[in-house]
């Protein structure tokens, strides 16, 4: 399987994603420069974490105008699997590929720590191998990860099963203490209508190897590979 990893000038986690898919999971992978318009025959597109264009404005607000985003958009509407991790999620939301917005964390501080996620949907190429309700441990690293959407959108997401992950405690219970950034409905990741586009704030790319003390993130990549 070939992964295409989009590189914006301020991307920081492109090498981490590349390392996981190429060296840990032994798949084909290539970088896609944001000024390009082709996806180099990728079967799956990753928008990695970082600060795409410095993000001095709103996170992802400029990235949606990068030339490659038009192609990514088309790939997504053709049903191609696209995952946005952290800044990648922010960009997908800004570009309108996913509903809602990511706003400043409740504490107003950047947060780098482990969190627990409850898998809420396995109706996506990225979660199909993860049992419903399964609790995963994953690191976050963001200042603007508080998921926000209006009430109508939230209830639609809920009804349509498009909430992919929620923040929870180690046992899978939802409570405000386990919600690091104040996201509405504890939402950590959402899907588009068709289920082929996933955005999530936590970093599966930072926990896919035993040496890092946590392999829970592998499941997302393995799901899409086994498709």
């Amino acid at each position, binding site marked *: 399987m070939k992964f295409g990893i989009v590189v914006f*000038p*301020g*991307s*920081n*986690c492109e*090498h*981490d994603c590349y*390392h*996981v898919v190429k*060296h840990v999971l032994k798949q084909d992978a290539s970088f896609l420069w944001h*000024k390009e318009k082709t996806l180099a025959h990728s079967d799956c597109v990753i928008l990695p*974490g*970082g*600060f795409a*264009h*410095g*993000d*001095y404005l709103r996170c992802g607000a400029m990235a949606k105008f990068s030339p490659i985003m038009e192609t990514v958009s088309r790939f997504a509407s053709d049903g191609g699997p696209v995952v946005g991790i952290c800044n990648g999620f922010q960009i997908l939301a800004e570009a309108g590929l996913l509903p809602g917005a990511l706003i400043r964390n409740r504490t107003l*501080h*950047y*947060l*780098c*720590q482990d969190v627990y996620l409850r898998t809420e949907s396995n109706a996506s190429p990225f979660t199909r191998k993860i049992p419903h309700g399964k609790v995963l441990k994953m*690191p976050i*690293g963001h*200042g603007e990860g508080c998921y926000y959407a209006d009430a109508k959108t939230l209830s639609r997401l809920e009804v349509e099963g498009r909430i992919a992950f929620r923040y929870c405690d180690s046992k899978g219970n939802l409570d405000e203490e386990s919600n690091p950034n104040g996201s509405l409905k504890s939402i950590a990741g959402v899907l588009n209508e068709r289920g082929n586009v996933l955005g999530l704030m936590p*970093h599966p*790319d*930072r926990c896919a*190897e035993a*040496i*890092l*003390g946590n392999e829970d993130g592998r499941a997302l990549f393995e799901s899409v590979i086994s498709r």
Partner: protein
Amino acid sequence: MQEPSVDLDLAQAHGLTPEEFEKVRAILGRTPTFTELGIFSVMWSEHCSYKSSRIHLKRFPTTGPQVLQGPGENAGAIDIGGGLAAIFKMESHNHPSYVEPYQGAATGVGGILRDIFTMGARPIASLNSLRFGSPEHPRTKYLVGGVVGGIAGYGNCIGIPTVGGEVMFHPGYNGNILVNVMNLGIAHAGRIFRGQARGPGNTVFYVGSRTGRDGIHGASLLASASFEADSEAKRPTVQVGDPFAEKLLLEACLELMKTDSIIGIQDMGAAGLTSSSVEMAGRGGTGIDLDLDRVPVREERMTPYEMMLSESQERMLVVVRRGTEEKVREIFRKWDLEGVAVGEVTSTGHLSVKFRGKRVADIPVKPIAEGAPILKRPMERPVREDSDSRLDLSRIKDVANPGKALKGLLASLNLCSREWIYRQYDHMVRSNTIVRPGSDAAVIRIKGSQHALALTTDCNSRYCYLDPRAGARIAVAEASRNLACSGAVAQALTDCLNFGNPERPEVMWQFSECVDGIAEACQSLEIPVIGGNVSFYNETEGKGIYPTPTIGMVGIIEDARSAMQCHFAREGDLVVLVGTLGEELGGSEYLSQVHQLEAGAVPQLDLAREEAVQYACIDAITESLVASAHDCSEGGIAVALAESCFHPQGGLGAEVKLPAGKRLDALLFGESQSRILLSLQKANLPKLEKICQERDAPFTVLGTVGGNRLKISVGQDAEINATVAELRKPWSEAFPTWMV
């Protein structure tokens, strides 16, 4: 615009002494132009010339088979095997951070990163060492928030993890905080780039952000003079950071370094265009012609003086092979950066600067680069009015309630959890962090290699105040011990020597003593100094800081999988102390916190014993015998035991027994050196015994890991008996509660 005419008054206003001004006139054979005066004043400033410290720094051992680059370049480099080099350095950004904490700290990070990637290394880990004033001082919280925010803002955005550091509070830093930042990068050992301008005819490129008026005289006026009451007024001399611009510069430079264009490259840091061009020509034994009309500027009507002295951030000077200019331009265009040919390497040996067709500076490079004044400043051991170094323990009551004292220490800002800080730093980006902040040393794996690197920063400035030589020795030993606790063998260090006004003989004495202390420990432990930084004039209205020779150290763990952390991890493990108990209370955090006393002899340090203890620990970790290793430092064995119970996931108690000593407080909270707490399975004890015998390291079994209480008995009495939760609460809540 009319430039002011140059005379002695103007030279003195630039920080030059009458003798130095005479020397300038002698070098040039005439009175300098205004631009030339500016150039000399920054190049000969304390910050750039090391004029007060240079004769002392020669005493450091700087060589070893692992050293690829010692002091004198942008950063030092060591061989870490597999054809790779680790390049690292620490630097101060103290004055700017006091004047404008967010930008001061942010540009400190930006500056040290450029020192690393200019050598051809991709930066992969940052650390810091911070000193703030008293927690009660009205400015302290503002400074902490700003500095932490600035480090986080810059490091997170550029995507380089901040993996470790230290922070201490003391009233001695009320008027002068310390912000020391360290970075480490990885390069191919055979592809290390240096700041050299070689080959007349080669082209000098200016790359990165445009030049503005920010930071003019940052090096000479801000970093090379003491503060008076008007520090706020110096805000315009602080630069403003743009981490995104630096990210672009980093990627573009690394891309350019894959080509064969580069002859030499150097960061425009302190004294910007001036120091980069002078130093590169100096090292290359050449000259440089600069045409300032081609320098990209972001403000109108900038004068040559301003352009030469601007410290605008995120800029580099690159000498490229003639004929490859278009390739260089293409790479910088790709990254939307300026990449402009602004000059040429010459064989004249002069820095010659043109502006609007007129020559505004023409200075022989050698005398300005190497002819900076070298001062042998007077030194004198300070006479203390009080008997600081004497301590009469008979007049101090022994601790009555050790449990309460322990909780008090754990809740103090100097010993409590630093999570509030490191949670704001992305410490995981680049997915290399094996041991995260909160242990004795941070550990990062090296992708494509079996090895991992351990990194730490350390200094106990109270020890250095009481006895600079002993304190500096301990700083080196403890940094190395921190690495040993992660399983790493120390390879080399960088230092950041923070002191008061060198014109005061007692400050120079402290400095010299600290240099000797570092040198002694380095000789004995075989750890070379491969680079560093001196920061003098940390002084406000005549009051200097405590001498603070911060040590940044790097070690190698042969097998990354064996990297060790500091928390008890298994129920039923034995708790073993390698080293001896000791009962030295002098200079301790306990005396300072509980008795408001900073007195006594600092703990003894036997460097042979230190080495034995460290290697016993490293051997035990390498042979996979232990589950945790933790250094006993500030707060003594009681605090070390408590910290060992605070595993981020859950936490385990322990029950230990200490033999009765002379004094309970000294036994529990004394800070004797060369001690490491290990926890291991009972079955591994004979193997540990054997290692300790071979290494000649004393050891004692203290007790057992388990349960949810920490119980410390001394002789027959249970002196501390508390649940892990009730000890952890004050420790973890102290910082966020204080910052609110």
